């Protein structure tokens, strides 16, 4: 009996060996680019000089001075944090709601080629980089772009609206364009979840005389609810990531008031100007908060969706 179990174990080990070997490159990458650089955190507590080593003479240890400079002295830091939260939370909310609605509606579509076609088309923008998408959206919303041409042409506004240089419109535009670009991709998960719902439940509903709306409401939606909860809790870790690559490509000094987020702020005053210690200080603060949020969301995911890794 024992020897049999041992043999099974040994066979399992042999079977899983290739998988472990396949994991080596990924683990190595993770170590080189994520684990080893953690030592660089020391920069946050120095007046770091990139010319000298981390602990060299040229880099002076300054304690919490960098954090004080950024978070207490800089007049914009509070607004930047507020912007980050507003933009990130709105994006998270819409990235849940729109793809879920889209997936629900798409699955009601009975014409297969239309369904496939639509899904592919909305899925594609995800693969455009923000450098390209940013230029496109800046053109579309410019004073000579087609949105303004339409608004002026229909006499809805007397003269072109400066969408991209307006503190009223910039934030909504950032959030909306991000959703437009990404919702097709996010919907894939929900479409998969809908497909995996047991077909007999619909048959039972049919027998009970449910119409299409009631089937969606009482069968499909509860069926994908665990997935929705899971996606929601997982996205909590991104509350401080408002999408720097998008905003860097779309913003300008006039909309810093509403559009500047932690990452772009750090990019401008830290990386662009060789103030690596300031960039690291903000990055570290961000990581600590994100870490807490990820732990919390992991607990929540476990409780509501039974999702565990460890």
């Amino acid at each position, binding site marked *: 009996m024992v020897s049999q179990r041992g043999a099974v174990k040994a066979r399992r080990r042999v079977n899983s060996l290739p998988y472990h070997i396949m994991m080596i490159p990924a683990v190595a990458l993770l170590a080189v680019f994520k684990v080893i650089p953690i030592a660089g955190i020391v920069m946050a507590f120095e*007046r770091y000089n990139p*010319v000298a080593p981390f602990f060299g003479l040229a880099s002076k240890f300054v304690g919490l001075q960098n954090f004080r400079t950024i978070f207490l*002295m*800089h007049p914009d830091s509070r607004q930047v944090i507020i912007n980050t939260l507003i933009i990130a939370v709105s994006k998270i909310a819409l990235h849940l709601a729109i793809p879920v609605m889209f997936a629900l509606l798409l699955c009601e579509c009975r014409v297969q080629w239309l369904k496939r076609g639509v899904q592919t088309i909305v899925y594609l923008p995800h693969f455009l980089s923000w450098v390209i998408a940013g230029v496109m959206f800046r053109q579309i919303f410019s004073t000579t772009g087609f949105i303004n041409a339409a608004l002026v042409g229909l006499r809805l506004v007397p003269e072109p609206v400066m969408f*991209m240089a307006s503190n009223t419109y910039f934030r909504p535009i950032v959030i909306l364009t991000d959703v437009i670009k990404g919702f097709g991709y996010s919907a894939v998960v929900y479409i998969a979840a809908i497909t995996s719902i047991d077909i007999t439940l619909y048959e039972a509903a049919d027998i009970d005389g449910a119409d299409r709306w009631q089937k969606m409401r009482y069968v499909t939606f509860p069926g994908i609810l665990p997935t929705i909860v899971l996606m929601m809790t997982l996205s909590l870790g991104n509350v401080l990531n408002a999408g720097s690559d998008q905003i860097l490509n779309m913003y300008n000094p006039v*909309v810093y008031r509403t559009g500047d987020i932690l990452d772009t702020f750090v990019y401008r*005053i830290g990386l662009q100007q060789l103030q690596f210690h*300031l960039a690291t200080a903000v990055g570290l603060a961000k990581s600590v908060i994100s870490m807490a949020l990820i732990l919390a969301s992991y607990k929540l995911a476990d409780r509501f969706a039974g999702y565990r890794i460890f």
Partner: protein
Amino acid sequence: MRKLSAMLSALIVLAMAATCAFAATDAELEPFSKYGEPITISVGRMNNAGGNFAPGTNSENNAWTQLLKDELNIIIDVNTNGFDVDAADYQNTLMLRTASDTLPDTFTLLDDAKSTTLFKQLVEGGRLADLTEAYDKAIGGSTKERLAASDTQSLLQFLTVDGKLYGVTAGREAYNTAVLWVRQDWLDKLGLDVPQTLEDIEKVALAFVENKPGGNPNTIGIPLNPSTSGLGGMTGQWMGILPVFNAFGSYPDIWVNDAEGGVVWGGVQPETKEALALLADWYQKGVLDKNLVTMKDGDEVRNTYVSANGAGFIFNAWWDPWTQWDGLGDTSVKNDETIKWTPVMAPLNKDGKFSPKNESVTPGGQVVTAKSEHPEAVIKAMNLFSELSLRTPEFEDLYQKYIAPTEGVTEARTNSPFNTGLYQVQGRILTAENINSYLETGVLAVDPAIAGNAPYIEGAYEWANNNTMADWYANKNEDEINKYMQQYVGHWAFDVVGNMYLEGEKSGLYVEKQRGFVGSVDAQSDYGAMVNELQVTAFMQIISGAQPVDYFDEFVAQWHKLGGEEITKQVNEAVKGG
């Protein structure tokens, strides 16, 4: 303990030995002496768009490098340990080389805020060679005379840290300030005069916007580089808007002397607020581009307006003719001979003067890294470059041998391994003087072989004589075009602009504003980036109307709070101490 001290002393001996190995002999420190053995210096080079290499030559092998090899036994290495990159990639390449500790023996430090930071970091990290002794001994010939005559103290202030010199510069050329370039053909079309004052500029700009003489429906008045790095594109030479600030007596990008004998930052002075008020008004009226803030960079602005017949103004320095010639696509002068740009010293300030900041004393220079075995080699090369660029009689034979024009095309100065500045100014002035007298009297008053700035004078003479583009247009093969490009550029850049500065200075129209301080203090590495960023943002917001003009006062308070006060304090200490 004994073991440790033994090790330490061994280290010290080693270090001393290393130092000795790098010390040049007295013979080698002679300004024009040739090295006994060939030495190699690696050079980090910015590939200047104006530098065009003749067939078969490149940045590592051309007339200038041949000159160094034959006369000084210096071999220039650009491709192995050095580098040669476009201007846009230059800073990033320096950063990468710094991080990987593979900086070449010598490279040029630019004059922006980022370079200031890098310079301080390199000095603190011990990566730069101390050039104090080499500079004292190796500088010679007319460079030495000229430096003796100029304000060496402030010239080298920026490169001096704790009494040691970490770079060399002969200063940047004088008269390097931006002037207003106007489309003369547009003015003629609309029957307008060349603008002089702020009011004139506004009037002409609005006329351009209204009548669209170039036929572009999106015509704007004055293009402005929206870049926000450093102190922003608006303080740049190309497509900046500094002359408008200067017309109010505002100098937002330099330290200026105040009435009490101290030094203050120009960006937070009340004059700057007045200038911003006008710019905000211009923005509302449409003199500035309404889409200004959403433009990505200067190139986008140029492509959208300047090279699309959509702008009749541009602020730029004397070198704008290079762009006019073939940098503007279909609207380049090369492709459309009806286009004509005229430079003018405008806008004038309330005293009727054109008063930009002094450009000849700026941060930046040529630095040598600590691992270079022959730090003095750069200085010796600089001596030789200067003599040949100035065409001093003693070096005429070398000039003829290496640099003199062959078939009408001169070896461009920008092709030399590094640029040490200053020397071409005198040449430019002489060119202007020569051409003036030539036009008046019909005789060459000064022998151009001796007096002129050789690279351009032949072409400029020919140009002045013909004063028409029909000739080059008739002979549109490549060699001819190259030749005529030199003439076009020579004529506008060196003759017209050079003459304008010369006349301006003679008549008192042109008055340079002296800088209160050129250097860097510790607080700048701590807060400089943040206060600069604050300034660019505030200016852009005020100009575009996102904030009222009175927001300037709030900005000034924030500027001081965020470290500006500390920087100002240290700068004043440095001024008083040094």
